[in-house]
């Protein structure tokens, strides 16, 4: 699978992230950490009243409140009143609202149903709500390509910038913990059965990840600003590589197409999830090509979900912006000395969806 090598890339000028760690305050960088013992990691929420009044919040689900808040945090950070375009991504959408509506249908024999649940369960409800909130009539879309949903959204945003259809694109992803999906995933071995403390997930050496959720918004712009986080130079997706060698070749070719070799990477953000079976190739890439770099990982902090790569993007970008590598994410001792200029994020989702993001900072 190829992504266009002529994409010009973009500048990340703001972010707003709500996750199972305290990340909604951009001034902070993982200084307060939360432990989870039951394999389910749920978001630490900001005070919604900082972003919405009672009438604006009415009937809004938790996810929609989170979405409006994260988008507001992001736009404030970027110094923008509204974006030119809005693109969102999700794997499972608004599961709680879908489930509530379905429960009413089944328990109330299809009578006296709550229209709000249906309306808020459609996957583009958030991108529509943000457009309404900020009065943005520009391009608006939502992608649900499972482990590539966020990547598709990023790709579309890069295209919009390249087509000069927008100067600032708000790109965001969201996924929430939901017991029906979670139960399916335990059955399939994607989520661990054994209760594992999240800070021990990489030592557990068992199949399956932890169930997570999160929301992440970014402003992607065609021009840098003084407060720019970094540049997203390019991205690449590989679906079901036939073998490790094939995956490694895709990675090397991706770097080469961007004028780089593995040795040029200062920081490797590794999307390993603690799933001993499916992490294999990501660990091999790290060991075979990046033992010179500072390696970090994050799915012990967030759990695993379709759009977790958005947190990886945030982590890589924040490391480059602050030049700080938080202790909580280190996967290996800090190796890089001197300024951190190039970060590579290698993600996998369920060992099926592999993606690479290349981030740079001058």
């Amino acid at each position, binding site marked *: *699978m190829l992504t266009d090598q002529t994409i010009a890339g973009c500048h990340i000028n703001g972010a707003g992230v709500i996750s199972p760690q305290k990340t909604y305050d951009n001034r902070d960088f993982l200084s307060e950490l939360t432990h989870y013992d039951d394999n389910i990691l749920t978001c630490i929420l900001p005070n919604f009243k900082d972003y919405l009044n009672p009438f604006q919040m009415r009937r809004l689900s938790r996810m929609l409140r989170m979405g409006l808040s994260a988008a507001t945090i992001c736009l404030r950070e970027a110094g923008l009143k509204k974006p030119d375009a809005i693109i969102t991504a999700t794997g499972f959408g608004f599961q709680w609202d*879908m489930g509530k509506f379905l429960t009413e249908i089944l328990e109330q024999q299809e009578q006296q149903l709550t229209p709000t649940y249906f309306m808020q369960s459609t996957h583009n*409800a958030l991108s529509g709500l943000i457009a309404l909130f900020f009065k943005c009539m520009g391009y608006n879309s939502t*992608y649900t390509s499972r482990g590539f949903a966020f990547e598709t959204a990023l790709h*579309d945003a890069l295209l919009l910038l390249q087509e000069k259809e927008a100067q600032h694109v708000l790109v965001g992803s969201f996924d929430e913990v939901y017991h*029906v999906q979670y139960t399916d995933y335990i*059955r399939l071995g994607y989520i661990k059965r054994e209760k594992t403390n999240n800070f021990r997930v990489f030592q557990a050496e068992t199949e399956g990840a932890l169930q997570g959720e999160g929301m992440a918004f970014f402003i992607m712009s065609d021009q840098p600003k003084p407060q720019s986080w970094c540049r997203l130079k390019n991205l690449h997706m590989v679906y079901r590589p036939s073998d490790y060698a094939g995956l490694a070749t895709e990675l090397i070719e991706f770097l080469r197409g961007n004028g780089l070799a593995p040795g040029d990477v200062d920081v490797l953000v590794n999307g390993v999830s603690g799933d001993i079976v499916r992490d294999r190739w990501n660990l091999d890439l790290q060991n075979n090509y990046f033992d010179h770099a500072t390696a970090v990982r994050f799915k012990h902090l967030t759990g695993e979900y379709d759009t977790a790569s958005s947190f990886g993007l945030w982590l890589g970008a924040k490391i480059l912006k602050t030049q700080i590598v938080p202790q909580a994410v280190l996967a290996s001792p800090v190796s890089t000395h001197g300024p951190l200029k190039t970060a590579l994020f290698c993600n996998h989702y369920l060992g099926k969806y592999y993606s690479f993001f290349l981030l740079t900072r001058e």
Partner: protein
Amino acid sequence: MNRRVFITGYGVITAIGGNGPENFASLRDRKCGYGRLEFLETRYQDDIYCCEIKLSDEALCRRAGVPTGCGFTRTTLLGLIAIREAIASAGLTDREVRNAGLVSATTAGGIRELEKNFFERQDLQSSGDFLAFMDTVDPGEHMERLAAILGMKRYLATVSTACSSSANALLFGARLLKTGLADCMICGGAEALAKITINGFNALMILDREHCKPFDQNRCGLNLGEGAAYLVLEAEESLKRSGKKAIAELTGYANFNDAFHQTASSPEGAGALKAMRKTLNMAGINPSDVDYINAHGTGTENNDLSEGLALETLFGVNVPPFSSTKPYTGHTTSAAGSVEAAFCLMAFENDVIYPNINFKQPMEELNIRPTTALKTNAGLKNILTNSLGFGGSTTSLLFAKC
């Protein structure tokens, strides 16, 4: 970056036909798919009629060439049938399919199947046939199934923007094609009827208990339908290599947001107006060059007023012939954009303009009215199609005959 985008094939299945020719015959003969539900259980079976495809899931499995009991959702089955027809109609080889990109749209995905065993699925201890449908709820799942059967890995994406989903899939696919990512993109969408959809639209009070009447003064809602359609988009170089002739070229497209309300369109149709205007600008044509408009025309009070006003503002009183084909197929939600795009291609092939069925009384607010007769030898060169969705989504596509 200015590659042209050609359509070389399409496939479609709806309540009015299992493939392109059957659909066209129904459109020509004014045969609608509106009727009582047979394959979906709901308390509203005698009350809310829909445009259901009169094939059981087992029959769809046979038509799609896949075994039953393997967790193929009805949405995926419809998609598979339509995409296979599209591939055959474009004459793509297996190798060309494997090298193509896929942008597919759905929103309901496997919810229809979830509805049957929602409570048992939540219990880790329970088991049964429903386990075959584990992990099939989300929209992206159908994309994986189609990709697996067709051997596609190059580029995969799923769009879920409710009623404009498959129009947005076509738009995104066209833009991807222009980057040189691939020489061929297969784009479209699929959606099966589900209890959640029927009840959702019913709770929003936008269903007509009778056959819908788009653009009519006495319209009172939409009818739901199900279906799937895919278009094969190819680059010029690909056509030169194969010597194939294209049916049409996608010369213009645009996506805007109404930013007015979560489910309703703005009264003056601002988003739709912007989308149509930009689409024509992109194609480099004037409103007077448009020969036919396949409207979104759901039959709801809100949509038809909003879209109608937008049409009148852009085209004036001399609006080209326009019609909604939703009385035939129902509103196929996520599949509507690509189903109606396929109808536009059929219109070119047969040089026909479809009638807006059930229209009797013009809307008070509009000076324009839809076309009610089937027009043959229509001399079609440019066709515009609109898809407007929940969340304020407004997308327009313009096709030029080749």
